């Protein structure tokens, strides 16, 4: 069911730590230990190197694309403690903003749902999380920092999608006043860190407060991913950890989170990623293998492919 569109030699001089395709599937960005970020034009199966971004002085851990409504913007974070926002103007990629107020390696960057504006969250090994909010008119950035969000370090971040059903309004309220249906939503994101906990953060006025601390993992969290919402009442987060497990947390009301252990893998799990409809979860880890998990009608998860290399042969029913 999965077909290879193309393979690519990134041309990086060292290992790659991240590869991300933009919203439309036209550009691919990769980041590497050779301190650079490369952007490829992969339109129609091509692979033309568009830009080679040099600006970091250490291995670049992660990159992420902003929603195209803000222009072609890419954020990157690195061992050199910097977060850089890159922007394409007339085909030229330039540094748009540089944030260097972290005291240690920045491990994760994540853009908020575009409905909230251009907002970037950064998690660092110094334990803090920064929320950068761009005023798109002036181009100025407003920075909020959550100090000591995770003791020892924050490793991963993921935003709650904005299209969640708003349970604060009852059905009647929705009917009589349709405008309330889109009443200001509460911004939330999840973070994972070296304290083995997944934390849910919620914006409260101009502060960010810890809404929940989910503790089941018994080692460092390496990635968290908030599932996209298609409107079903429950919302889910996937987290993966050094303890070789992937856990799916689900809730209906943001009060009670139920963990389900997806699987215990042979090696450390580094990455989890939801498909856009939230029915397939991609998992990758230290053993260089990639797994795709799919949920069946009864809510049971099963592996539909081991190692994407073979995924094309695997047919699901």
């Amino acid at each position: 069911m999965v077909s290879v569109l193309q393979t690519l030699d990134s041309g990086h001089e060292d290992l790659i730590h991240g590869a991300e395709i933009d919203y439309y599937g036209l550009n691919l960005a990769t980041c590497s230990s050779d301190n650079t970020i490369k952007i490829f034009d992969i339109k129609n199966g091509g692979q033309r190197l568009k830009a080679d971004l040099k600006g970091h002085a250490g291995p670049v851990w992660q990159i992420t694309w902003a929603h195209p409504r803000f222009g072609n913007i890419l954020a990157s974070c690195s061992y050199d403690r910097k977060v850089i926002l890159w922007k394409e103007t007339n085909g030229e990629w330039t540094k748009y903003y540089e944030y260097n107020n972290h005291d240690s390696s920045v491990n994760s960057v994540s853009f908020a749902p575009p409905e909230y504006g251009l907002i970037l969250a950064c998690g660092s090994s110094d334990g803090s999380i920064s929320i950068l909010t761009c005023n798109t008119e002036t181009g100025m950035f407003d920075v909020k920092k959550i100090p000591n969000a995770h003791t020892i370090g924050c490793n991963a971040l993921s935003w709650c999608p904005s299209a969640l059903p708003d349970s604060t309004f009852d059905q009647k309220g929705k009917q009589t006043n349709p405008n309330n249906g889109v009443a200001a939503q509460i911004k939330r994101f999840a973070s994972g860190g070296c304290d083995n906990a997944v934390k849910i953060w919620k914006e409260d006025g101009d502060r960010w407060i810890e809404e929940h601390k989910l503790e089941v993992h018994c080692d460092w969290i390496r990635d968290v991913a908030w599932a996209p919402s298609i409107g079903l009442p429950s919302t889910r987060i996937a987290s993966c950890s050094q303890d070789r497990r992937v856990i799916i947390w689900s809730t209906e009301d943001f009060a009670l989170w139920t963990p389900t252990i997806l699987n215990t893998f042979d090696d450390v799990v580094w990455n989890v990623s939801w498909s856009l409809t939230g029915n397939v979860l991609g998992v990758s880890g230290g053993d260089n293998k990639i797994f795709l998990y799919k949920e069946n009608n009864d809510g049971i998860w099963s592996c539909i492919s081991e190692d994407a290399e073979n995924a094309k042969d695997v047919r699901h029913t």
Partner: protein
Amino acid sequence: MEIEIEEKSPVIRTAEYCMNLEDLQATALSINYTGQYLLLAGRRHLALKNLYDYTEPLKLFNRNSKFEVSCAEFAICNNSSAFCAIATSQLIEVLKWTESSPVLEYSLRAHTRVVTDIDWHSKHPYMLATCSIDTYTHLWDLRDPKRPILSLSAVCMSGATQVGFNRVSGNFIATAHDGDLRIWDIRKGSRPVQYITAHLNRIHGINWSHTEESNLITASQDGSVKFFDINNPRRAERIITTPTPSPVWRARYTPPAFKEGLVTIIVPLVGSESGENSLLLWSNSKNSQSPICSFTGHNDVILDFAYRNDPYRQSNDIEIFTWSRDQTFRVWKLDKELQKLCIQNTIETENGESALEYHQRNSTQPSCSLQHEFSIIFFPSIPGIQKYELDTDKRNAMIRIVANGFIIILQVIFPSGYPFSSPPIFEFCPGTTLDDNLSLKLMKSLKDSSASRVKKGKACLEHCLRALVSDLKKETGGDKAHYLRLQSPRLEGALSKALSDSLIPFPKTSGVRFNATGILVTFARPFTAKRFSLRNQTTTPRALSALSGGYLGNVNGSKPVFYPSKDIDRKSSTGVSICIYDASKLLMVSRELAENYVIIPTNLPRMCRKNREVAEEFGRADLVQTWSIAETIALALASSDFELSDDEMFSSPNPFAKTFLEALINHYAKLGDVQTAAMLCVTFGRYYQEISSRTSSFSTKSNTSHLHAQRLLKQSVSPYHTVTAMDVNSQSVIKYNAWVLAQHLKGQTRSNSWSDSLDDFRINEVNRSVLGESNRNFYDNLKKFYADILYCYNLLPARALILKFVSSPAAFSSTVEFVTECQICKKTSKSPSCLHCKKFLLYCSYCQLPIKGSANSCLSCSHSFHTAHLLEWFENHDVCPVAGCRCPCADNFGMT
């Protein structure tokens, strides 16, 4: 308890000679046997300095290698004194220095990973040992350079970072593997004769004693130097600990000419001051615990040093040559005076802290006792602190700081809750020479940093004092070290940041990501690269520090190579490693279907039939069935629709259709097939035949009007109510009324009856869709979600069409907004009455009564009307009804 620092503090010495060699970017230093030449080797150049004549210019030889020099060593035997071994990457080159230039004599190839250290034998002129991250240590005889004469295989996961020949007999070799030492006897080969678990953290330096065959010292990341006797390796003979547990980079015995001495290089902690980039001289005696002399001057980390005897043998003075990352080399003297201090210390029987005790505090338990905190702060190591007075009973401290010409006399009072709940109170006392501005600034940063530390329950005094001194220097200029560090962060990463590497997660080398259109991108470690050898191979390590063999072994910041492939010129670099997949089938959202699906609101059965054909065409048998069922339902609906004559009579023609469709939509939504779910919602959701046919002209407008338009028109069909009052809160009504009415007018002959009670009229909303109201939000979300996917596919018309079926309006972004300004208080409001003075804002220009319900204002003349009156007037007129106003409002309302 008053302590004068002068009593205990080390002697401070500055350099005898300093030379700045910018742009040399050398990473290794060595002095030749005779002491005449100093070699500085870097990626781009080899530089030779004649030490007999400092005025002679530096000789530069271009190298232009891709790789940094990790190590360069002159041979240490008279016979082979012209030889010099230089290690880059996996290769060792042995050069012979002739009069004019170096000649490449031998290339020693056997290592498969970066070579980390080289050591020459002190007796055999042609013998040298090399060690590498590949865990092997090779012994070479230059008379047979093709292969090593002996390979020592450390069967362990961590690479060898240091190697050293025994200086007395030359029969033993010590190698360092992380925190462990291995001692080999070259006569026995193959297996180490001793394993010593020396440190818990990486060993950066090994040095054998010049006089005792079995003695050696190790310098480690954990901030200590340990003395071992290999005959009794169980425990260290002696441990010395650096003041601020900073990692010790090198520790070397002084040459025999200078007795009982030991020189160390310390890697300063992040953010500390230049004073700490010093070389420290220690006494070799068991009892001395603090350095004897500190050689200060370098602004950055010292990379290496070498000793040189006085070339003319006139005195026993020893010179030390240092090369630092600040791109200067300096010369220091170990003279008689220092020699005296060293020996004195040996005789003195000082009853200081025992070494072990000193060492244990490195395990940094946050202390609660104030006394303990004071005892572990090594005040002399904080630059600028001149004098301090601590009183543990009164819980206060007076500290005098001098830096950049400013004097600060700081009083610190420790509340009883310190360090768990309350931060200490700082105060600048009389005698402080700071201007108000600066003292405010410094005080603020003191408070901030103390509060943040105390929040974590950590003691903060030392931290605060360091921050204070560095802030003061920064504010008053002259903080060179700081800038230097920023210039070379990679090296910093290698050295000082090694401290916190244990907290940075291990780099991900494989990954998987879905993008918004269903493309899956994966990357993985290329197959050509061999998996990094790790101490614990069962699972991948969690922290970056596990890799520091790659980082630290090659101190000088050459590329942190994680997984080098076997071939040296890694031309194809990492090889093909990124795969892009089309996973859209997995996601049940198909682009082809999205492109071909049709939406025909006027003819549902036809729409279902068409879509079924589309599904058939693209081989989606499952969907063919769904669309067939949909068609059946639609047919049933369509036939009943025509029978409908009265609003009130509408009841579901097919009582099972609703539950069935709901189940179907839920099924697809749960399956993740948003496409089918959303299409079903669109087909059977809120749909009014009447509207769709009639309002085609405003279909390009925002979807938000839809619902209201529907309501409005539905109501207006009723013979009793010609004008509807809308939900007053809904501004969208106001916005779109004009169009709706325009359409309305054209299509309808109307009765003129109108009553004032309209404003109170409640919408008696009738459930007109097959799908009920109860799940409306869910259906809307499905539609929006599907619309987003269509947006990614760049199918904009389809997206707009889907969004038109969303019942609740999207958030108004940046469209024109209509606000009304109150005549009385000049405040703007969106509601019909002013929130401030409670007066109505709009009055109908026709009947002069306030407008509570739907209102229309002319954009040109800004006169407002009841919607009904507007219709009434403009049916026969083109110009505004207000006296004197000649505005052709009818045009603006689109009514001509």
